């Protein structure tokens, strides 16, 4: 009943050949398109000028250490705010997902909160909290003195609203029969959320969460409004004094060094979770 190994080998080979041909076509066409674009840019009359102002190696080298020094501030602030946001947002999302009529006022508050905080530009919230709260004259000195705290609070408020909406979409996408099953085995509403709904929801929303993660990482630069010299502000200072945009590139590079590995890790993990569940359907 076993099949001769050369049958199997032939099939494998055919499959590989097929794949390889397609691969080559795709690769060649991508190289042609991208290469053509690159050629066009590099051979343009203004390329030297552009290279000098946007991609100058000397300027990059000179500005990089300062930008990097500023970047630590971003990273620290980002990590703290992100952690706070992940927790608060889940709370807001859970409140918004309740259906009990008694909780209507709380739900209303949560709705108003997300609507307003998403709708208002982050920069305005940073202004309001960052300059408004100290102006009230009732905030403690340590809060007023350090722009990081106020800036962090402003960012956390805004991003809680964004992330809460992402969570909520995830919660809603879990089929109601899952909740019914969780209740039926005797879990409470809270336990059903914690052990059944939330874990399934979180897995589904990881990519959009990563979007907001990455946005936050970049919006951390907005605390610069309150004075601290974080990476983007340092780049701006250096760009303005040199009439050269390259320092921004240094900042972007640092951002990429965080976000790209993050995106890769998330992708790998999602693929694993997917493989673990569900039949793999052949094409």
């Amino acid at each position, binding site marked *: 009943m076993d099949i001769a190994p050369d049958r199997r080998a032939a099939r494998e080979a055919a499959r590989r050949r097929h794949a390889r041909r397609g691969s080559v076509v795709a690769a060649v066409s991508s190289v042609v398109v991208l290469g053509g674009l690159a050629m066009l840019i590099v051979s343009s009359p203004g390329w030297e000028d552009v290279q000098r102002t946007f991609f100058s190696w000397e300027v990059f080298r000179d500005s990089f250490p300062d930008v990097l020094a500023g970047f630590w501030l971003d990273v620290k602030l980002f990590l703290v705010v992100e952690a706070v946001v992940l927790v608060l947002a889940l709370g807001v999302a859970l409140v918004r997902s309740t259906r009990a009529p008694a909780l209507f006022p709380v739900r209303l508050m949560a709705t108003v909160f997300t609507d307003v905080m998403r709708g208002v530009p982050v920069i305005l919230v940073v202004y309001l909290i960052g300059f408004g709260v100290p102006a009230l004259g009732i905030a403690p000195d340590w809060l007023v003195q350090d722009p990081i705290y106020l800036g962090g609070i402003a960012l956390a408020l805004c991003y809680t609203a964004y992330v809460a909406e992402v969570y909520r979409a995830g919660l809603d996408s879990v089929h109601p029969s899952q909740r019914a099953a969780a209740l039926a085995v005797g879990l409470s509403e809270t336990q059903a959320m914690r052990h059944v709904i939330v874990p399934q929801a979180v897995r589904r929303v990881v990519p959009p969460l990563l979007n907001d993660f990455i946005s936050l990482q970049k919006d951390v630069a907005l605390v610069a409004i309150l*004075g601290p010299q974080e990476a983007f502000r340092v780049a701006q200072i250096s760009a303005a004094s040199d*009439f050269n945009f390259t320092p921004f590139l240094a900042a972007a590079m640092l951002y990429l060094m965080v976000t790209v590995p993050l995106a890769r890790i998330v992708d790998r993990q999602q693929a694993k979770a997917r493989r673990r569940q569900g039949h793999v359907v052949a094409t």
Partner: protein
Amino acid sequence: GDDDETASPTTETTALACEKADLALVTPGTLTVATDSPAFPPYVIDDDPTSGKGFESAVAYAIAEELGFTAEEVTWIRVPFNSTFAPGPKKFDFDLNQVSIKAERQKGADFSSPYYTTPQGVLVAGDSEFAGATTLTDLKDAQIGVQVGTTSLDAVNEVIAPGKQVRVFNDSNDVVRALKNGQVDAIVTDLPTTLYLRDAVVEGSTLVGQFEAPGGDDWGAVLEKDSELTPCVTAAVDSLRDSGELASITEQWIGAEAPVLALE
């Protein structure tokens, strides 16, 4: 307007290439001058550069006149500070926007000779512990704020070398709010701005003094890189300086004096 009808003719100092008719202008027949939007006093009064009121507005009309243009032949456009030194062709003939002349910047754009050299002014709240500062050393422990894109940051770092990292703000509005809120102890701006902020914006503030930026902070008109117009504008500025007209414009719009803060 303060247009001086009797300004000395400068045709001798202007090379032949600077004949009005021969100038390579963005829009032939008119001189296109740029400044930021908005433009602030005392450089431009009421954000209206065409009035000739305000230091840079007045300087622009004086240069225009040197080059042979009437006031009607001057057009103003608004260009954000950042794009004044973006590479590529410019939409203006020259730009007056408190741009400090720096070697690095000269790689991307041309500068005329300086039309003003500004000292830095230090402003503190009236009830501040630093209100009585008489030397730069007195300011070492102060939390200082400056505006982004100005030379003040370098000046503070090099001359005062404060113990706390200088806070850098987006614009004068923000830096002033930080001062009022007590988020910074002192703000450092170019002297004309300091004077304006003290007189018109921050009630009860004290101008504790002024100091020279290292190597001086010279403001020049910005032109497109390798522009044919650069020597002509430079010549016009030089001639205004020589004639004393520049000094009188300066006197009129940025008059006041302030104590000089010395290094201990």
